């Protein structure tokens, strides 16, 4: 275990921004902290970095208590959302700046920076100033500056949110490869569920300052801990018991099923009328009126034989359904 957070509380006035009982980070893994704005994810990152200090609790890094340690004494690197590159320094000088403070011989600094420039594919940009670079290149410089000291933990604060969609996907792979190459523990904060699923070994979901789920992306998608987590990733059908009742001895008030787990078949047990057909590229999304409620059904793109106002019969893949009692998921499932 490289980093652990115990009973940490952070308040801003009367507002409790963060309340974490027990959160541990292992070596050489990619953690994504996911949550809407105001959920406390940036506060968590800043407390780990030492830019804010917790009101109570303990933070341990490699068996050392670092709760009150200043940022530069912690074994971390941080990439800011808007990169915070020094505009008056060149790419080379920006990356070298953390080393210049330490008493490291000059030629060694040059060697280290040049090596990292090569790995990051920035050698050609070394003499340029940040405002001469593209967004993606600036991001890579910020990343290089954060890891030049070879920290054990790399913190990323919404690193991809200022980039356009194409560059974002490129950099996603790049982040992952850097993490593997340097065997870093990455803690990546984002509000983008796709990013979280694509990158994380673990996804930590924060809601109102508390950890509501800490699991692999697959578990988060298939077995969300509560309704909040279920709604977080992708489209989901949530149907109340009043509308659709399964009498199998389960005491629940909501049931949940993903659109791709519903099939349209001749002998389906439910009947509904197609209200709209949306062609989304890889899939086709049907919105079906079931009388009291609506259901979204996802079909693959070749399945384009359905039209609006058509009546169809649906069959649910019951083993993938989840049931919730007062917001929390029940372990029981239908056979």
């Amino acid at each position, binding site marked *: 275990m490289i980093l652990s957070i115990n009973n940490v509380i952070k308040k801003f006035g009367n507002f409790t921004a963060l309340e974490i009982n027990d959160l541990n980070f292992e070596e050489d893994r990619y953690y994504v902290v996911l949550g809407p704005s105001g959920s406390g994810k940036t506060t968590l990152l800043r407390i780990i970095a030492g830019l804010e200090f917790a009101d109570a609790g303990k933070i341990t890094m490699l068996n050392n208590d670092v709760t009150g340690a200043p940022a*530069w004494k912690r074994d971390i690197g941080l990439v800011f959302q808007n990169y915070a590159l020094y505009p008056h320094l060149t790419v080379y000088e920006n990356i070298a700046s953390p080393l210049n403070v330490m008493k490291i011989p000059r030629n060694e600094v040059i060697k280290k920076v040049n090596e990292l420039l090569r790995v990051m594919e920035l050698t050609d940009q070394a003499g340029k100033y940040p405002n001469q670079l593209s967004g993606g290149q600036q991001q890579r410089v910020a990343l290089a500056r954060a890891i030049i000291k070879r920290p054990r933990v790399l913190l990323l604060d919404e690193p991809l949110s200022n980039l356009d969609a194409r560059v974002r996907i490129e950099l996603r792979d790049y982040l992952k490869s850097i993490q593997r190459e340097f065997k870093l523990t990455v803690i990546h904060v984002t509000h983008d569920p796709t990013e979280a699923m694509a990158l994380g070994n673990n996804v930590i979901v924060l809601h109102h300052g508390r950890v509501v789920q800490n699991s692999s992306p697959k578990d988060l998608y298939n077995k969300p801990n509560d309704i909040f987590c279920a709604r977080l990733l992708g489209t989901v059908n949530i149907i109340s018991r009043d509308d659709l009742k399964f009498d199998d001895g389960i005491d629940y008030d909501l049931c949940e099923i993903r659109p791709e787990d519903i099939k349209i078949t001749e002998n389906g047990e439910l009947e509904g009328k197609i209200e709209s057909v949306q062609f989304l590229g890889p899939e086709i999304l049907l919105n079906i009126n079931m009388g009291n409620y609506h259901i979204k059904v996802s079909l693959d793109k070749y399945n384009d034989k359905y039209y609006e106002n058509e009546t169809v019969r649906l069959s649910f893949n019951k083993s993938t359904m989840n049931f919730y009692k007062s917001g929390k998921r029940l372990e029981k499932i239908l056979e």
Partner: protein
Amino acid sequence: MFIIPAIVYFLIFAIYPMIENVILTFQSQNVSGQYIFVGLSNYKELFYTPHLGKIIDNSLIYTFIVPFIDIIFAIPLATFLKRLNKNFLLPVILLPSFIPLVTGATMWILMLNPLYGILYFVYHKDLFYTIWSIVIIDIWSSLPLATLIIYSGLKAIPKNIDEANNIDNIKGMRKLITIDIPYIKYQILAAFILMLVYGSFTFDPIYASLGVSTPFANLDLSYYSYELFFSGNIGFSAVLMTIMTAVSTVIALIFVKLTLNNKMHASRFRSIHWPNNELPKSFTIFFTVLYLLFFMLPFAWILIESFKTYNEIFSLPPLIIPLKITLSNYTYSLTNGEPYFITSIVVSILGSLLALFIGVPAAYVAARYNVGGIKFIGLVLFIYSIPLVILMIPDYAMLNYIHTINSWPGLIIIYPVMVLPIIIWMLYNFYSTFPKSYDEAAQVDGMTMFKSFRKIILPLSHDGILVAFLYAFIFAWGALIFPLAFTYSAYNMSVLYPSGAQTLTIFIGGTIGHEATQYGILAASSVLSIIPAIIITIFLRSKIDRVWRGGGIK
């Protein structure tokens, strides 16, 4: 159409006078008052004026020593202010820049009196026999402004940069020199040039100290050219003003260029290993208190003096705490100074309002529709940074032509030269960040541009306009050169046949300031003259640094 009044005003009262000056240098007045062409003979006087060497030396000292010392002291002070992060400190420190310069000079004259001022306890020589008294007054009154510009630059450094420094363990002197100073290099340069303009244009303290200093000890070009103008030597005065115009144009152009483009360049400080330790907080507090003492001591002394009786003022050694508190100084000042107070209030308010009337629409269309573009804003900044004294002769002729010399309307007409550039520049920055959607919505609703300006924009920008007005008022309240040049008697207190328009600054600096023994009354009048500045500073306290940050420099 919105911008035309401003341009016409500038052309008439600022640009034309500069050209007219050049023409005047080739002319001379004959006995009947007519101007005749005399060729280069005015320029010949440059070589026959005995004190000119001394005067130029003094001008150079004001122009270069003052800004240099200002910057050296402003950077640490701004750093301390940012570190201590106490909001009440900024308005306190700014006070010396916001009070009338004549009043500031008067404070120092009373304080530095070798027998009856605080100086008695330290040093028994009269500093007003040397140029350094004026240098100290210049620094005292301009350092706050330099500090404000640099401080607003420091405050504008993104928080993330500070945090990145924290993570990289860059702090103290190293952070200041390798990160902060390169980051705000542009503000430092802007402050330096503004102080250059300020120093080269030293006038008010020289005027105020005329009664206590030796002849020519502290005279500079701008004061000397005023003296020449006053004694009727128009031609030679115009020569000196033309020289100042040329010099200040060069400085002003650099200033305009700097203000309008903001580029980053490499720093050369990095290779040195600067100490990487934070100064202990107690040191920061200690130095800040020293600064505060420097800024506040004159205020304290003048307040004490204003309550002393005549005998107490001239007691030796000086009394720190008066034994008998008297209000007679204030009553004398209010009764004898009444016409001056009235004139100052009326002229400052109406002059600033006139400037608002011309300036608000111009600033709005310049910012919103880019009317006039960068050239108009360049013109505004240029006029802001030229010394007012060079406009004196032609503006006098113009006011004389419309029979408004020595009257309120004359001063009201001419005051916008001084405050209009400030108003336009502040509001230009204000409207640049003003959401476009308001007047777009108004136009969609069918309003004309004029109507949407009047019905939508003006009501929505009242707080920005108020700030600009108060700022302008402060400058107008402390004005000295224009009233000095364009008036010669006090308001006669007549409603039907008003005449005379000398202002409070003349009352303090001249009428009683040049009489040697009226120290108590002088102190009381000074205290009264700084009250508006204090009220406005308190009112603006939370807005001051935002206003300056908005446009980078002001």
